[in-house]
């Protein structure tokens, strides 16, 4: 068990999309928790359910998507069944969010200052002048030069990296306990990605804000996260401390992912890759969803679906680790 009570707990979350051709299960039995101030990385391929998990936590799933089971607790209180108005008050105030594309995250018709002030005043009992002072403070904090002047500029007057800084300021402006950052650097130049990640990490450490960092970039995870959860076809297949997962992956899928990252200074003809592709949501195989691509699959994998179980110093949903040492309750 982790020492501190978790800030966010997700228990057996199930998200379904009702479509004309039947119900698709996008997230199936996902459980995770984030301690105060912790950075949890969530990795996986496109369509593995990373973003949907984040969207479900902030209560912004769009129909036909819906939470079909499980629960989400913030500081011990259930938030997945709150009425929309109460959930709205939590968004921005307790849980902030950062999305992928800073170029389109800001309303083009309003100055960045107006958007920050609006958000501050929605959540905090501040007057116009105080809110503006706080907005300037925030812009300085996220490293925008000449913040006093820039606050009255429109989004199109900022570069992509600067806009993502503004977005971070917006996510932090009511001092939330948790930030869900969904691919926060994917749309940016490589040179700026590192700056933004460093900034996000620094600010969250200073404010004691926990982060759920959703990305497909293992490099970003390795640099930033304390723990990492690997998702595949709507389920978590492995979760553990970031160094353990990277250097001693226990699930064959994680191992495959790590194997496909080129190491610096090592010449390879061809990068190793995992054969095949992730199954579509309407064609998830019986047993372990990874079994058709898994080099180590055996009979049980094709019949029974594994839950997370202790595996080395991480936890993996893989029958290879069935019956090995470790207590079932162990969280890390």
């Amino acid at each position, binding site marked *: 068990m982790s020492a501190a009570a978790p800030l966010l707990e997700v228990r057996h979350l199930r998200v379904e999309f009702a479509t004309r051709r039947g119900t698709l299960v996008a997230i199936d039995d996902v459980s995770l928790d984030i301690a105060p101030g912790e950075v949890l990385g969530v990795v996986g391929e496109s369509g593995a359910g990373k973003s949907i998990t984040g969207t479900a936590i*902030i209560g*912004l799933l769009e129909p036909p998507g819906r939470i079909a089971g499980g629960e989400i607790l913030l500081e011990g209180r259930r938030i997945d069944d709150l009425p929309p108005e109460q959930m*709205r*008050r*939590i*968004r*921005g*105030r307790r849980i*902030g*969010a950062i*999305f992928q*594309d800073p170029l*389109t*995250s*800001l*309303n*083009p*018709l*309003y*100055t960045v200052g107006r958007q920050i002030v*609006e*958000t501050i005043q*929605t*959540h905090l009992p501040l007057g116009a002048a105080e809110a503006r002072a706080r907005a300037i403070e925030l812009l300085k904090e996220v490293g*925008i*030069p*000449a913040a006093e*002047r*820039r606050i009255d*500029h*429109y989004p*199109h*007057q*900022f*570069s*992509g*990296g*600067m806009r993502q800084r503004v*977005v971070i300021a*917006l*996510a932090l402006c*009511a001092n939330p306990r948790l930030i869900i950052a969904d691919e926060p650097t994917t749309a940016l*130049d490589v*040179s*700026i990605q590192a700056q933004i990640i460093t900034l996000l990490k620094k600010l969250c450490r200073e404010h004691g804000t926990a982060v759920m960092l959703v990305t497909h970039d293992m490099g970003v995870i390795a640099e930033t996260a304390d723990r990492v959860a690997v998702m595949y076809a709507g389920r978590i297949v492995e979760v553990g401390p970031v160094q353990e997962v990277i250097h001693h992956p226990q699930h064959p899928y994680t191992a495959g992912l790590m194997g496909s990252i080129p190491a610096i200074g090592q010449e390879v003809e061809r990068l190793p890759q995992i054969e095949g592709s992730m199954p579509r949501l309407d064609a998830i195989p019986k047993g372990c969803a990874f079994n058709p691509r898994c080099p180590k699959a055996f009979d049980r994998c094709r019949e029974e679906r594994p839950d997370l179980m202790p595996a080395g110093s991480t936890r993996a949903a893989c029958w290879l680790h069935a019956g090995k040492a470790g207590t079932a309750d162990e969280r890390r």
Partner: protein
Amino acid sequence: MIAFVIRRLLQGVVVMLVVGFIAFSLFNFVGDPVALMLPPEATQADRQAMRETLGLDRPFHVQFATFVGNAVQGNFGISLRLGRPVSALLVERLPATLELAFVAASLALLVGIPLGVYTGLKRNAWLSRVFLTVSLIGVSLPTFLIGIFLILIFAVWLGWLPSFGRGDTVMVGAWSTGFLTASGLKALILPSITLGLFQLTLIMRLVRSEMLEVLRTDYIKFARARGLTNRSIHFGHALRNTLVPVITITGLQLGAIIAFAIITETVFQWPGMGLLFIQAVQFADIPVMAAYLCLIGFIFVVINLVVDMLYYLVDPRLRIDRAVAGGH
């Protein structure tokens, strides 16, 4: 901004010159005005004298320049049908048309935008479906048919509203207004509904589809993630982003309302410019037709200028960038 306005004004002048040229050409297309104005028994000398009096013996470009010069001063000559100065006729008829167009446009905007927002936000509500279905009628039925139906129901069967004319008008300076009398206001109802219905449904459908589009954008999603209230998201962030296309269409439609009031004015015998124009066409009253053409051209140019300036107000991206984007 000033450079932009000046550029647009110059473009407007060019457009007006082209419109004026077309209007001027009308005179040469529709036969010899001298033959029309003189009695059949007039002699060749009479014709020559008339030609010189009218300046028709001068070269083409001089005649056009004279026409433009007169037109700028509001002098479009004398109506062949009514024997009175065209400008006086237009000034007399202008208030009726402008008041009708104003009421029709206000109706279209004040009803069309809220309905568009409602049907955009409550996409699946049954009331939205009703509005959308009914709006198809407005889009697809021709204006004169709507007018005749309205007359049949409200004037003939129910007898609530007058079927034609402006009712009593009051002169405010040189402006005859129907806004100040009960019968004037009553007379406005049916024609303005007839004239505005198409624009109303058009604006409603436009606002709806723009709202649906904007509500899908990332900045609306991000606004929700920031916990802003629905009111602020829908009206502060979404509606304002739909305004640029709405202003464009509304502006053009306002011009259309004024220009195509012809049909409504004919159906309701509304004593406006459109009716004057129709009568002028029947009589081949060229000066009136030319003047009407120039006036409508002018109205469109002004509306387009206003629309362009409204863009500037609504969308900061179009404003001149004094500050260069800084940072990386």
